[in-house]
């Protein structure tokens, strides 16, 4: 399997506060990996660094073998990397459809357009002229995913899709994931629910205090190892 994205010793700061201490992660073409870890472990920071919203202070991000270091955030999506941000962050003064159309702003060709998004999430079609923030939390998350897909990414990064949603809604949203990544798209999924994260991914990385504390094949890592990596102490 060829490598789509690779980070080497990635380091990031918020001002003087160091959030990432040399992260090494690889994502293969067509692969889904999961990032787990407690709040503040650096998972969202890692995704923001790749999306260019946070400039890495040291280390490298290699995408298709080329460095992404120092690229402006508005140029990242054109390379085929899309982020579904934590908390959805929909544009409040735009309708559902306008949010989706803005996702296509970079003009990358591919199979995702309004019709295929509505086919994936039929609930959005009948509400397409509603203000995006007038929808339920689950439907807003569908808009956020659809908005990211409209850029026809090769790498989809999802930051805590389950945040603030009822378990039944979370299941419904994750049920769409196989259809999304089915045609060779890679994905990085940040998820608090460890069992869910392992089920949807082929490999899993556990973050702890800005470092990777465990990585392995999702089906093989033991619960004990995850507990240790998650909390930093034997259970």
């Amino acid at each position, binding site marked *: 399997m060829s490598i789509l994205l690779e980070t080497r010793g990635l380091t990031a700061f918020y001002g003087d506060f160091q959030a990432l201490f040399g992260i090494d992660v690889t994502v293969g073409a067509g692969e889904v990996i999961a990032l787990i870890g407690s709040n503040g472990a650096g998972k969202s920071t890692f995704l923001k660094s790749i999306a260019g919203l946070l400039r890495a202070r040291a280390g490298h991000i290699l995408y298709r073998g080329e460095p992404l270091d120092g690229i402006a955030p508005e140029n990242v*999506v054109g390379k085929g990397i899309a982020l579904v941000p934590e908390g959805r*962050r929909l544009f409040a003064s735009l309708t559902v459809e306008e949010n989706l159309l803005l996702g296509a702003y970079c003009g990358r060709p591919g199979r995702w357009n309004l019709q295929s998004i509505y086919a994936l999430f039929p609930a959005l079609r009948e509400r397409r002229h509603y203000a995006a923030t007038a929808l339920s939390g689950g439907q807003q998350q569908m808009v956020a995913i659809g908005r990211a897909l409209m850029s026809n990414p090769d790498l989809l990064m999802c930051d805590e899709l389950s945040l603030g949603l009822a378990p039944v809604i979370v299941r419904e949203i994750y049920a769409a994931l196989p259809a999304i990544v089915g045609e060779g798209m890679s994905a990085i999924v940040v998820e608090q629910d460890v069992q869910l994260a392992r089920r949807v991914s082929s490999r899993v990385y556990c973050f702890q205090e800005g470092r990777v504390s465990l990585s392995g094949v999702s089906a093989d890592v033991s619960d004990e190892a995850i507990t240790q990596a998650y909390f930093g102490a034997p259970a």
Partner: protein
Amino acid sequence: MNTLLNIVVQGVLLGALYGLFAMGQSLVFGVMRLTNTAHGDFIVLLVFVLFALTGFVHLPLAVAIALLLVIAFGAGYAVQYTILNRVSSRDPLPSLIVTFGLSIVIQNVLQQVFSADPRSIATGSFESKSIALAGITLGYLPLVTLAATVALAFAMQWLFGRTPLGRAFRATSDDREIVQLMGVSYRRTYALAMGVAFVLIAVAAALYSMRTAVSPTDGPALLLYAFEAVIIGGMGSFWGTFVGGMALGIAQQAGFYFDPGWGIWLGHVVFLGVLVARPQGLLPKTA
């Protein structure tokens, strides 16, 4: 009865000019939450650019105005990209201070170059021509101003509501960090918004300079009218700004009827009244 109708009609025609002053201000505030205290001075600056084009370069007026629109777009883009983007943040104070500084610089540079004399743009005798309808005299120039304001309000509503650029304007106003994930540079979007605002300012400047003589220090007074129209109408809505300009124009015209010294004053009174009774403005809605 005819007097009342005359006050309203002349007020609407005057208000069209104020609405035009205010539309650029409304756009800039709507997209980047920037309170541009140099807005009036930008109008005056473009008046003098137009004067230079017709008076020194001797271009025909129509050509000069067309060229002014192009110059204005470029100047607006450049001012935002090189200066105002540096102070654009959640904190409104840095951009207030910078635009305040720009205002002083523009006034003094204009005085240095053009002296303090008021100047107007010669239009032959177009500015004094009028038609009489049912006992009311309607000036051609005010009618053209009204038509321009209505057309530009429609154009802005279309630009914001129906085009990809308008979507990017609104989305950038909502969340300028996340909009970058869609491939939109908020710095470039802000610069484009200021470019469009300057085109509106250029139209206002051209019509204003045909109507009356303008001196380099007139900017702050124009800024006040623009502010009042925006706040009476409601922030961030082009039709609100339009209505705000009309309300201000009618109030001033009514004041002028009672006493020539009362016009401006009554406009301020109506502004204060709206601010007290309906601080969100008459038509509040984000465009």
